[in-house]
């Protein structure tokens, strides 16, 4: 059943119809936030919050684009809030402990495996590039849908994706040479 039809049923109070929508998109949202923040718990909280916001506004919800893009926009904003609060907490921590810097969970990980190297490289991308890269590479969304979800032109998506992939090409060069020695 189409998203719009399920949303109409949900707007009328049909919890099961809403459940079908949640089950359809929950994994995508959780994966996206986990890759953006590096934290599985935050990811589940953010996905839950996005669905609750959708439920609370179900009667006034008017689709402007796909439901998937709408939900991704909500969780992306929650990620930005999370990063801001994290940065504020880190500033407070620095003031108290005198630590020179504090980073997120992905910091200081010596890449012992390719998966760790990739995770670290993606985590260190600037946030707008990371969002595009994750949605394109891991969720397989076309540029048009990514543009809709992130609220930017398709051309911007293309240039962010290019910059992100170029960064990964450089960062993963040692692994590439190990896998395919000259």
């Amino acid at each position, binding site marked *: 059943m189409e998203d719009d039809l399920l949303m109409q049923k949900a707007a009328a109070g049909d919890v099961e119809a809403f459940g079908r929508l*949640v089950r359809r998109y929950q*994994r995508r949202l959780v994966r996206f936030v986990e890759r953006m923040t590096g934290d599985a718990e935050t990811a589940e909280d953010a996905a*839950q919050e996005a669905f*609750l916001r959708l439920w609370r506004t179900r009667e006034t919800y008017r689709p402007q684009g796909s439901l998937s893009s709408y939900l991704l926009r909500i969780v992306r904003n929650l990620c930005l809030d999370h990063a801001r609060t994290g940065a504020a907490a880190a500033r407070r921590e620095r003031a108290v402990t005198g630590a020179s810097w504090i980073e997120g969970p992905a910091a200081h990980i010596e890449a012992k495996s390719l998966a760790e190297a*990739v995770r670290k490289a993606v985590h260190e991308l600037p946030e707008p590039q990371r969002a595009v890269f994750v949605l394109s590479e891991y969720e397989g969304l076309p540029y048009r849908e990514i543009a809709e979800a992130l609220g930017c032109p398709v051309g911007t998506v*293309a240039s962010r994706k290019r910059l992100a*992939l170029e960064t*990964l090409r450089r960062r993963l*060069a040692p692994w*590439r040479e190990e896998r395919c020695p000259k």
Partner: protein
Amino acid sequence: MSEMTCARAQARLTALLDAELTERMSARLRAHLAECADCKRHWNELAAAREMAQAWTVEGGEVWEAVRQEIAPGDFSALMAEMAALRAALQDVRAEVAALRRELAARPAEPARRPSAPLFPVLPPEQSLLRIV
């Protein structure tokens, strides 16, 4: 048609990998790659980076149960009440079974049965049917 320079080609390689170019632009770019070793090497490196990126996997959890409890607490409470009632009923049945077991264990053992009378008594020879026949 403007000439495809290496700079222009390399700026479009990612979009080519993502199948986001028009057929015409893809054909021009592929023609350039067939002739330019530098751009071909760059293309191979980008393709390898994309492939390596897949080494990082994330499962993605489920949140529906948590959401459902928030949006339909009434339904959830009713379900929990039903479960509590079923649990209480099960405990009653368990108590009954335990009482029966105790009663059975407390009963004195029944005396051994005497052998019952034969169903067909053995007749004296003068009454035997065999003899009549």
